[in-house]
């Protein structure tokens, strides 16, 4: 049977929709490691049917990516692989690299996480696409180029005739990922393997790319094997889901079943630990205690037993097999107690994981009466764009931050949110630098930092601390934890005896043990390291902590614990947070107020409930609607506002309203009205008690 592939024009015989194209059975992969063999994958079975999307979900170290790599035959030579991977009726395991190369790119397309390193920087995108086509098909150069143009058009690259000869670095992240998808479907594959395809992208771009991936699937009829850790993406994309833990699938089923009635405690915990954009009130998240087991010598029994709140003795001795929940059902789980979960008289799944009590915030004074901790007024930071090697001359200006105002009162959290390139990091650095050349003013605790001398700035640093995003990079790997925590204390002149008393206190404060002071950062997990980073920030009892994406590098189950910790510390110590983030779900959870940034400006600001429930700026609306929800039913009903194109360069900001080039509202306006957007830069208009938006036509819209 042939599949009509009019767009691609590649006549291939392909299986009918619904028949199995990729069958993986009892796949096992192990690597030699320094401490012994690492059993990364320990028996994975799944079948991928034509036209469907199967998502493999798991946290880092669960073996999901190794599974994908094994299917592609890209494992290193020292990996030991057993089991079977069948594409149609061909066995792929054990094929030579040369024969695998004929299959990769033709029958199996690949989309990787980081399109910048997946594309060769020295060849143009078109050349690489043509190469991908001509390796597997008998085409002339002209034909291949023509097809490459078709493909780029298909994945939504504007003006492909002009862009085809561009180099990867000239493309934005979203465009590169589109080009990768074009390459993946170039030869009309039966299977597309997408390994975290949108993890490196901003939400609005993620929404675009997922849309393209769906379209690519429609056109080619390929099955998609999607590897991801983002449950929201899974809910929106997947037909079926495999949840992996410690190298094994622990639960499989259709997306609807899995999200509605999870039966494995790990899945239940995972779903419970995700901060949700659509959750109304601010309750503590439910973390999964502990960390995944070492894959070198797994303890006997269920690998999740150590973290499972309902584990019984049997779980510690016997590893459960994957069994159908009800006989014959597609929903299967590897848990001894699966039958008891949510059964009458059994274990109810809500509340299975203990949720810490939501920290009581001091009710205290209304916002206006609390002292101001940080006030930023008309902060502007422009960078000159220089040309020339000997005599540098200015050819333009990057308006990284272009007039930003906000304030933070004692005991509250302001989230600064926006996509990459919006200026939120520059804003943060301008505040932290204290001194610096910029326009506008920054006042910390009522003191204008521009007027302080060196000594005054040093004093102020006690009250202003920072927690960085990457817990690997923010701790000096060559310093023991005790020295790391002592550093701020030593810098500010504490004596040894006081430091020796303070370090264990700090470790306890963030939920670690005093003994940990002698260990090095490498001996801790990501979540623990982030706790150390928080402890260091707390050392001097600061008033304001700047949190730069503090949880975005962590797995969801760990992230929940860190968010709870931040919440507790704030309630207990009366801290104020400036929270820089791109993840709106986390912000809804932790912030009191939110400021949305776009191209160096704040476009909407206000109380977090107000802004999320009734976003008034079209950009906020698009941003909120682009965030995937971990709920397949809601995902299907949502109307997504997909923004066109990419963020304009801050060196070349549009006239009038900066957002008009991508604004969905602008496009629907009558020419008489839209003229205003072209010429007049909108000022922040007050919409409510604590809610303002910079849009000429601001109107609330419910998008969740």
């Amino acid at each position, binding site marked *: 049977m042939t599949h009509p592939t009019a767009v691609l024009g590649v006549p291939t015989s392909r299986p009918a929709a619904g028949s199995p194209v990729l069958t993986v059975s009892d796949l096992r992969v192990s690597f030699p490691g*320094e401490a012994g063999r690492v059993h990364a994958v320990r028996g994975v079975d799944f079948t991928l049917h034509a036209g469907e999307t199967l998502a493999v979900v798991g946290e*880092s170290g669960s073996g999901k990516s190794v599974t994908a790599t094994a299917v592609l035959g890209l494992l290193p030579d020292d990996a030991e692989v057993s089991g079977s991977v069948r594409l149609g009726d061909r066995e792929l395991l054990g094929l030579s690299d040369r024969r695998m190369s004929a299959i990769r790119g033709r029958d199996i397309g690949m989309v990787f996480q980081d399109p910048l390193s997946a594309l060769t920087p020295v060849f143009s995108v078109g050349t690489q696409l043509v190469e991908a086509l001509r390796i597997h098909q008998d085409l002339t150069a002209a034909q291949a180029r023509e097809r490459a143009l078709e493909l780029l058009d298909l994945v939504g690259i504007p003006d492909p005739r002009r862009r085809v000869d561009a180099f990867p670095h000239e493309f934005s992240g979203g465009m590169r990922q589109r080009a990768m998808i074009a390459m993946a479907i170039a030869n009309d594959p039966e299977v597309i393997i997408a390994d975290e395809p949108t993890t*490196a992208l901003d939400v609005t771009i993620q929404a675009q790319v997922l849309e393209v991936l769906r379209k690519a699937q429609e056109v080619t009829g390929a099955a998609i094997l999607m590897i991801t850790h983002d449950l929201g993406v899974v809910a929106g994309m997947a037909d079926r889901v495999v949840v992996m833990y410690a190298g094994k699938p622990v639960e499989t089923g259709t997306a609807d079943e899995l999200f509605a009635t999870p039966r494995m405690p790990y899945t239940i915990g995972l779903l419970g630990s995700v901060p949700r954009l659509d959750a109304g009130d601010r309750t503590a998240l439910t973390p999964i205690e502990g960390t995944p087991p070492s894959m070198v010598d797994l303890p006997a029994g269920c690998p999740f037993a150590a973290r499972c709140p309902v584990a019984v003795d049997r779980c510690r001795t016997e590893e459960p097999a994957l069994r159908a929940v009800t006989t014959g059902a597609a929903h299967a789980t590897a848990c001894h107690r699966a039958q008891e979960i949510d059964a009458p008289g059994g274990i109810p799944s809500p509340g299975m994981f203990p949720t810490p009590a939501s920290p009581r915030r001091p009710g205290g004074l209304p916002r206006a009466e609390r002292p101001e901790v940080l006030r930023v007024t008309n902060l502007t930071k422009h960078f000159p764009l220089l040309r020339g090697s000997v005599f540098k001359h200015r050819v333009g200006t990057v308006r990284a931050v272009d007039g930003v105002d906000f304030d933070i009162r004692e005991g509250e959290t302001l989230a600064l949110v926006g996509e990459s390139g919006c200026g939120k990091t520059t804003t943060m650095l301008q505040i932290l630098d204290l001194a610096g050349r910029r326009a506008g003013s920054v006042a910390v605790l009522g003191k204008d930092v521009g007027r302080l001398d060196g000594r005054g700035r040093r004093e102020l640093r006690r009250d202003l601390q920072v927690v960085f995003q990457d817990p690997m990079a923010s*701790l*000096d790997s*060559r310093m023991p934890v005790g020295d790391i925590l002592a550093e701020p204390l030593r810098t500010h002149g504490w004596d040894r005896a006081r430091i020796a008393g303070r370090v264990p206190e700090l470790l306890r404060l963030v*939920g670690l043990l005093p003994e940990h002071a002698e260990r090095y950062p490498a001996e801790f997990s990501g979540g623990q*390291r982030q706790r150390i*980073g928080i402890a260091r920030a707390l050392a001097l009892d600061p008033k304001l902590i700047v949190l730069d994406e503090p949880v975005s590098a962590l797995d969801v189950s760990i992230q929940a614990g860190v968010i709870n910790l931040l919440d507790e510390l704030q309630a207990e110590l009366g801290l104020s947070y400036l929270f820089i983030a791109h993840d709106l779900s986390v912000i809804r959870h932790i912030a009191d107020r939110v400021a949305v940034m776009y191209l160096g400006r704040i476009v909407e600001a206000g109380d977090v409930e107000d802004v999320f429930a009734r976003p008034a700026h079209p950009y906020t609306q698009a941003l909120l609607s682009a965030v995937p929800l971990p709920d397949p039913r809601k995902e299907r009903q949502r109307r997504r506002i997909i923004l066109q194109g990419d963020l304009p360069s801050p060196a070349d900001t549009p006239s009038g309203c900066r957002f008009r080039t991508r604004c969905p509202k602008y496009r629907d306006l009558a020419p008489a009205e839209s003229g205003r957007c072209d010429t007049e830069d909108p000022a922040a208009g007050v919409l409510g008690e604590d809610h303002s938006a910079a849009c000429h036509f601001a109107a609330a819209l419910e998008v969740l």
Partner: protein
Amino acid sequence: MTTPASATGTAAPPRSRSRGALVLVRFARNRLALVGIALVVALVLLAYAVPPFLHWTYHDNDFASLDTGPGAAHWFGTTHSGQDLFALTLRGLQKSLVVGLVGGPLTTLIAAVVGASAGYFGGWTDRVLMWFLDLMLVIPAFLLLAVLSPAFQHGTWLFFVILLAAFGWMITGRVVRSMTQTLREREYVLAARYMGVHPLVVIFRHILPNAASILIIDATVQVGAIVLGETSLSYFGFGIQAPDVSLGTLIAAGTPDANTSPWLFFFPAAFLVLIGLSVAFIGDGLRDAFDPTARGAKSRRRARPAVPRSRHARTARTARNPRRKPTAAVVPAAATQEGVTP
């Protein structure tokens, strides 16, 4: 999750050891490093304690045995003029040990300070330091020495070690500079800066320990290079002058005769190798002691932390964007659970 507990009222825990103490403990665990230390101590003892008990001193000539091979009377043989090679070698060892052990690390120290300052401060500091460095690279050392030699003719050995170091640090300095340029963007350096730590403290506390591996290796290599390089200085008439000797001058003098009277070359050379070897052992030990991921320095009592996700698994895939990627849990079996209640 824990509730943050205030630590008041709990008994003060034993004071945790600082980095210095931990590095020492970890160094002491390395057997080969201890062998290195023992070897250096043995060499020092041999060089300084043994000569008074010998029959021959290094400036005696035994005219009865000129240019003889090793034997009972002269353990290492004699030179063309009948000097006892054993006595000569020990005398040379005295000089060379001091020159090498002081000069090698000194070279590296200069390289580290100049390179790290240039890389960390950037701007004009960087430019000026690099001009100076390039100047030192392009001007032939002997030209400068020829100019300087009248002034330092009668200087002590210390002068001479400093001079040697001053001509050997440039290449390493450049390497350290470029390493510093990448290290200075690290978040822990930013964090230190935002804490208000003095820039020079940042360099010594964060930058140099993180470049320690290359610095230590460089220092060990420099020890050997300095010992040999010292001969070229002797040529200009300072440092070690006849009748005094060093291992360098002995090796230089023995090289032409390596075929006919091999002992003249091999015995001094063997001692140079011993110095180099012991220093390399110590350097290895130090490097492992500074590097928390090194295997050799870990206590054998505690289980080695396992790396659950193999590095091989990572290299197999496309490099990921470090910004958004969930961090791999590198949790040792022995490390505590996430969120242990105190």
